[in-house]
């Protein structure tokens, strides 16, 4: 009981506490008027809200499309295409996020929606790849045992393949979130807002304190989400 409280409330509160302490200290002790003007609670809350918006919308989309795509590609009729896609996705993953944003800027222009779309596409990759690899990795004998005992294909998928692949799918989700939080700091370049606003502003006025605030909040968001999903998975998966 005490352990559960600590894991679910204690550790997250400590992480949020560290970020809050840095923010509160910075806002209340600005070294000069430029920082005082640029680093306000109002502005910080706004960029956090924007950042979470980018993250949430793009991740929900990427999870749905990535998992559905991974399942489809793992079906026998599409399996060959799946293997090719897996390779393409691995190559796609090596394209820097800045390049992806730049590409979308030239095609679709500026704004929150374009940023969300770019993040969405970028986050699909690890989810799709891990869903496919997770299902593909289920031992053939296990599937054959299930079929041999009279399970229909859809039951084999939902009762056997997906649950066994689940930890690998979740690992893909965690990778996607960490990448997404980082890449979303670049959204500001195409007018998407987010924590990148603070960092870019800090860079342009040469004030490290503003940069640090943006970077710390982004880093702690990524660590916290990754941690919470990992813990949630441990609770669900009891068999390995």
């Amino acid at each position: 009981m005490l352990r559960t409280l600590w894991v679910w409330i204690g550790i997250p509160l400590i992480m949020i506490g560290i970020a809050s302490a840095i923010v509160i200290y910075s806002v209340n002790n600005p070294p000069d008027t430029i920082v005082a003007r640029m680093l306000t609670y109002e502005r910080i809350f706004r960029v956090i809200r924007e950042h979470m918006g980018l993250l949430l919308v793009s991740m929900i989309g990427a999870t749905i499309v990535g998992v559905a795509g991974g399942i489809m590609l793992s079906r026998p009729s599409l399996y060959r295409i799946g293997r090719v896609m897996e390779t393409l996705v691995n190559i796609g993953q090596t394209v820097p996020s800045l390049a992806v944003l730049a590409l979308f800027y030239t095609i679709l222009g500026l704004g929150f929606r374009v940023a969300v779309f770019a993040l969405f596409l970028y986050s699909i990759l690890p989810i799709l790849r891990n869903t496919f690899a997770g299902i593909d990795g289920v031992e053939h004998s296990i599937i054959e045992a299930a079929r041999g005992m009279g399970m229909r294909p859809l039951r084999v998928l939902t009762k056997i393949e997906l649950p066994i692949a689940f930890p690998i799918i979740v690992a893909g989700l965690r990778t996607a979130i960490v990448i997404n939080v980082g890449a979303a700091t670049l959204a500001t370049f195409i007018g998407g807002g987010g924590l990148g606003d603070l960092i870019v502003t800090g860079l342009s006025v040469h004030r490290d304190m503003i940069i640090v605030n943006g970077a710390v909040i982004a880093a702690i968001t990524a660590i916290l989400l990754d941690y919470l999903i990992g813990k949630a998975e441990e609770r669900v998966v009891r068999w390995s």
Partner: protein
Amino acid sequence: MIKLEGLTKVFKGHNIPAVKDLNLEVNEGDVCVLVGPSGCGKTTTMKMINRLYEPTGGKIYIRDEDVLQMDPIKLRLDIGYVIQEIGLFPHMTIYENIATVPNEKQWPKDQVKEKVDNVMSLVGLDPDVFKNRYPSALSGGQRQRVGVARAMVSDPSIMLMDEPFGAVDPITRARLQNEFLRIQERMDKTIVFVTHDIDEAIKMSDTIAVMKEGQLVQHATPSDLLSAPADEFVSNLVGRNRSIKRLHLIRISEILEDVDRAPAIKDDTKEEEVKKRLDESDLRTVIVVDRDNKLKGVVGVNDLKRKTGEVAGDYYQEVSDTVTDDATLNDALSVMLEIGEGYVAVVNEDEKYQGTITLGDLLNVVREES
């Protein structure tokens, strides 16, 4: 009950058939063992019966019904299937694994629970201990028990068992085989059983179908197979020591009553009496049992010299292994070799002492049979 007619399977991209023109009939309540070297098509034959593989030629009938015209899902739900690789579901508890078919058949929950508990006890897994464990926490032998339990939980009249006791050590295998034979005696299912081990085939079968390179070489009772192998392939398979192989065909209980040996002594027998009995014994040991005839151990001449005491209970040593009376003579031989003694104590299911079998007894049987 099961009839295969000209059954043939050519895998895509292969030019040699994996199974070729196979004709085989299995009678109701019989165990038919498919035996042959690895790659001869045993698994393929079995997977065609429950239509995991579609035959490229020939017919399969179950109770005169054409299997190839049946709904494969319905067909599989009514055939117990033990896959060669065991194939337990790693993310499900033992309970959930065994409940697979009842759940697919949508039985009511309390009925599923009752059946799973029953079948777990039947295969020697205490439900209270193992129900909530995951397969990764089980030994090889326990996993194979789960595999068998999972196949028979819904009481199918037909079972397909692909090397069900393949992945365990010889002693555990013998135990699983004996337990299974005991169960089969009561259940009387029609079973197609695959093995590459001729000894297992002789022991488990009512009839043996020997396969070679996808074709049936001989289908006969084990006794006929031993006395009249159809060709050189079969006689090589059964080996030269055929009379020893017959030890697989005889159960200990069948010879135990003819063995004339002094009875065991109770643990409260006085030292003088123990000495007298030791002198009379041809084994220079006597078996000690308690008041309920449960086996306690064995007293040898040296035990009397080494230890002090007044009654047999003070002297005996525990025996390292025993056999049950439904085991075969070959099992008895394995245990003797394992424990390094010329005799082995026989107990029944309740650990009650039944008698003692010696190497000499086995030799007599071999001599008589050949």
